[in-house]
């Protein structure tokens, strides 16, 4: 059984996580697992499945927050050839570990969800693109798929129905950019992972040039529950527009880091202070990233912000992939931002100039500032670079995300930037040294 550091026995996704050996098919099935897939292939039409998910209000949990049923309905129904569900299991957003948590606890949940989604778009095959570093989740998924095939739940006649369904695995090899759906598709096709320009969208021309819907692990893992209980019941949770529950990963300077299942709409204070135990002894929270490193930071004074996805968008940030990174008053924001910029520069695929050049430019500027060689000029450079990275100048969001890190940390912590750049001091780290 997987080691668990997070919610066990939550309302939806982690409902069965207290049960030992949940990764085994018979255990999963005894609790009600695969009843949704059985119901779908033996008694529902594709349109009915999409409608049920539409009622649930489920939105993509990979970061883009797009309505899942709508995405499925974009896949042309009358396309004569193969169509695919591609599962994005390339979880690489700094601060996000929830897909790994779900896979290590309940791989069958994803297998079942992926099969249902494949049925819903009128396809027969799902491809799971899983990041190469995830050895254990890969092995567990591989074994789960093998079990499901042996049982006859996947294959030529799942549950006796005349509708072939199968799930396949493809391993990534270490590239953050593969979390972006079109880069992921390129990678799946055996190419360097560089985002495509859209249109055409994957729904029309996706994997191997065929209609494809790309869904995140958590999104698909939610689908069996919706089919078992009804979309309406799922929609009773959450806020008016952002329905249901979701996983968040809390990491950094908190007492109980972990993966927690939350009802959308609870506050960050609830998550960080109650679920994750709050700040470490003797320290104070300073800032948090509300949805992965790519979400604009919020200072600790905004802990009462709701996890409502639309509310976060209104604030200019996002719930993203649910990775909440918490930093306390013993850590320097300039160093933190510099580390993230190194990440974005390293992971830039090199296709779009602003991201390829801007990221490295920012890294060199941060290096100067942290080496005590900064000046007002460097602050101006950072400001220009962050503007240049943003506003859709790149094919994918990586460039924007790098810009947001600079912009949001500079907005809220201008004083720390100025201390470093203009006075060559860091009051924060001095505190840390004394502590």
């Amino acid at each position, binding site marked *: 059984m997987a080691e668990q550091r997070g919610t066990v026995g939550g309302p939806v996704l982690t409902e069965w996580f207290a049960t030992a050996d949940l990764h085994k098919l018979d255990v999963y099935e005894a609790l009600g697992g695969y009843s949704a897939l059985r119901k779908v292939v033996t008694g529902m039409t594709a349109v009915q499945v999409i409608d049920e998910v539409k009622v649930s209000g489920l939105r993509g949990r990979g970061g883009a927050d797009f309505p899942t049923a709508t995405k499925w309905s974009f896949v042309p129904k009358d396309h004569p050839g193969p169509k695919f569900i591609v599962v994005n299991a390339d979880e690489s957003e700094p601060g996000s570990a929830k897909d790994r948590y779900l896979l290590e606890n309940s791989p069958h949940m994803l297998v079942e969800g992926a099969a249902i989604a494949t049925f819903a778009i009128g396809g027969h095959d799902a491809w799971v693109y899983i990041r190469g570093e995830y050895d254990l989740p890969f092995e567990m998924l591989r074994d789960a798929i093998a079990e499901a095939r042996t049982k006859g739940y996947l294959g030529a006649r799942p549950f006796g129905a005349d509708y072939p369904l199968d799930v396949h695995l493809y391993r990534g090899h270490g*590239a953050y950019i593969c979390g972006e759906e079109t880069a992921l598709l390129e990678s799946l096709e055996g190419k360097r992972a560089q985002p495509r320009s859209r249109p055409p969208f994957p729904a029309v021309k996706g994997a191997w040039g065929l209609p494809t819907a790309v869904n995140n692990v958590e999104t698909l893992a939610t689908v069996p529950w919706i089919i078992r209980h009804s979309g309406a019941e799922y929609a009773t949770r959450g806020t008016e527009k952002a329905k249901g529950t979701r996983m968040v990963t809390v990491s950094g300077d908190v007492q109980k*880091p972990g993966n927690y299942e939350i009802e959308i709409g609870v506050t960050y204070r609830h998550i960080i202070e109650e679920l994750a135990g709050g700040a470490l002894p003797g320290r104070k929270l300073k800032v948090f990233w509300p949805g992965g490193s790519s979400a604009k930071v919020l200072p600790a004074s905004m802990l009462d912000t709701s996890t409502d996805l639309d509310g976060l968008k209104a604030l200019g940030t996002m719930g993203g992939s649910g990775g909440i990174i918490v930093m306390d008053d013993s*850590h320097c924001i300039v160093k933190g931002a510099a580390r993230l910029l190194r990440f974005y520069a390293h992971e830039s695929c090199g296709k779009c100039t602003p991201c390829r050049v801007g990221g490295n430019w920012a890294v060199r500027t941060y290096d100067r500032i942290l080496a005590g060689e900064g000046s007002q000029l460097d602050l101006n450079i950072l400001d220009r670079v962050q503007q240049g990275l943003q506003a859709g100048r790149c094919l994918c969001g990586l460039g924007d995300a790098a810009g947001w890190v600079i912009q949001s940390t500079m907005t809220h912590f201008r004083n720390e930037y100025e201390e470093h750049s203009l006075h060559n001091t860091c009051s924060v780290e001095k505190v840390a040294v004394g502590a």
Partner: protein
Amino acid sequence: MSALSEHVIGEIKELPGKYPQPRSAVMPALDLAQEELGHLTQEAMTQVAEALQLDPGYVEGVATFYTLFHLEPVGKHRFYVCTNLSCMLRGSESIIERLKVAIGVTEAGEVSKDGMFSYEEVECLGACEYAPVCRLDHRYEKDLTETKIDQLVNDRRLPRRYQKHATAAPATRKPAAPATRKPAARRTTRSTRTKKADG
């Protein structure tokens, strides 16, 4: 040894049939090659290209893009240490310093004299609730401390029958080939990240 065995080439030729289009086989093929040789030599990449009927430059282009493909010799046990923000906040810098001392190297990518170890700083491994973390021998090592680093290294220095972690290794066809030290000659390709970032 820098070339692939007939057996592996045979396996690689089987791969394209498993995918809707044959080109998807390139990464699984490079995986097999790397598993046999420890790292991807120029010769091996050419052999992969021939087996898949692709251009050798294309195959190398794919290999250099992804961080899990190694174009230089690596240690038999390779530490992939996360130094991204969540791990940094939890002390990954001191983990790296300790690791360098424990395996006796001065920089990332350098292989220890006995060929046993090397390390690499990597981006987020997606196990942030256990920060600081590293990937070692196909498993994650969590809640790292300096003591734990020493243990991980020492365990692997023992004769195999005493190793606590002997079972954690994946089912490989053969024991991994000991990494031969090959300094200087291919130094330029090690920083694939620079190549990538600079386009």
